[in-house]
């Protein structure tokens, strides 16, 4: 992220004294790689929550799988997948700029 907002990479934007939104937009374009990593972390949260016994959705999902509580697992899976797809849509330049 730090390298993504570095002025040298966004020289043209800063030179134009662009509006804040444009800086943000330009930065987000540079943040693709980091965005993809964030997407990967979206699923990793399940493991992290179990390791640190943090009562989040990941822990809830794992417990529900063990208890065979299928509706809960389906709902959690749907939400995780939606977040994953949403973040991918933000991060993936191929999806943002379709041919």
């Amino acid at each position, binding site marked *: 992220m730090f390298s993504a907002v570095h002025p040298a990479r966004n020289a043209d934007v800063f030179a134009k004294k662009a509006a804040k939104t444009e800086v943000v937009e330009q930065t987000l374009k540079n943040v693709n790689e980091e965005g993809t990593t964030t997407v990967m972390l979206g699923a990793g949260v399940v*493991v992290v929550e179990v390791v640190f016994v943090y009562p989040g959705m990941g822990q809830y999902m794992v417990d529900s799988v063990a208890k065979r509580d299928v509706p809960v697992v389906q709902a959690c*899976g749907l939400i*995780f997948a939606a977040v994953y797809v949403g973040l991918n849509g933000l991060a993936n330049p191929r999806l943002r700029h379709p041919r």
Partner: protein
Amino acid sequence: MSALTAWPIRVSGIQGDDGAASDRRRRVGVGRCGAGRGGGAVAPILASHTLNAIIGGNWDPPSSAAWLGTDNLGRDLLSRLIWGARVTLFIATVATLLVFLIGGLTGFLAGVCGGWVDLVFSQIDDLLMAVPTLIFALVVLSVMPSSVVVIISVMALLDSTRVFRISRSMAADIAAMDYVEAAWVRGERLGWILCREVLPNALPPLLAEFGLRLVFAILFLSTLSFLGLGVQPPSTDWGSLLKENKDGIVFRVWAALIPGVAIALLAVAISAVADWLLDWTTGTVKTRANG
């Protein structure tokens, strides 16, 4: 060949490093892999105790009877590691072989045939990739039993999406070559083109990818077992060992760390071998034979 030598996945080392470093990586990696695999294969001879024999108190420190101490129920940790290596390596290897069978075959078909075949396979692939692998596995395991067959099938299906993309892009590159055109003109069949033209040319990167996928399979299986949804007791694997002993970290017990260290060492060793294999197959390393 430039596409092959510029293959982006590098697990360790720098592009174009000298042969000595690569050779060292190979020897260290092969040694560690050999220790892991050999240990797993001859577990009945190596392990001094059976899998579930209780030999002492819980979390005893290392002694002459139990070299790495005992686990949370007083079982010999070293013996359990050796028995667990069998399960971990068996499931990971079979799953990875299946991954390459499914992903490689569909990827080559999509890349060579193009058209609607490519479209259908690619869309299915995108569909499967749209759900995070761990979440997908959790959903499947909530309705199916955590048996070895189910775990292997889920891992194979989910990981093959990645291999599909790689083999499809390589097959598409190769299918555009003149020698493939020549083979078509000669009247060769699709199967012949896939096996004799595409496969040999795509093999070196796929071999390196195999090592990488094997590492991911081991880590994925360990994750599932760590969550308690993978290998079920009384059988055990390294992820289960980690889960059983993780609470010991509060009491400064070594047993909490050892299974994790074993997983990490195995992953690094396999990566090193895959890395050397890539160097060797793409000819970027000077071996002793050719100076």
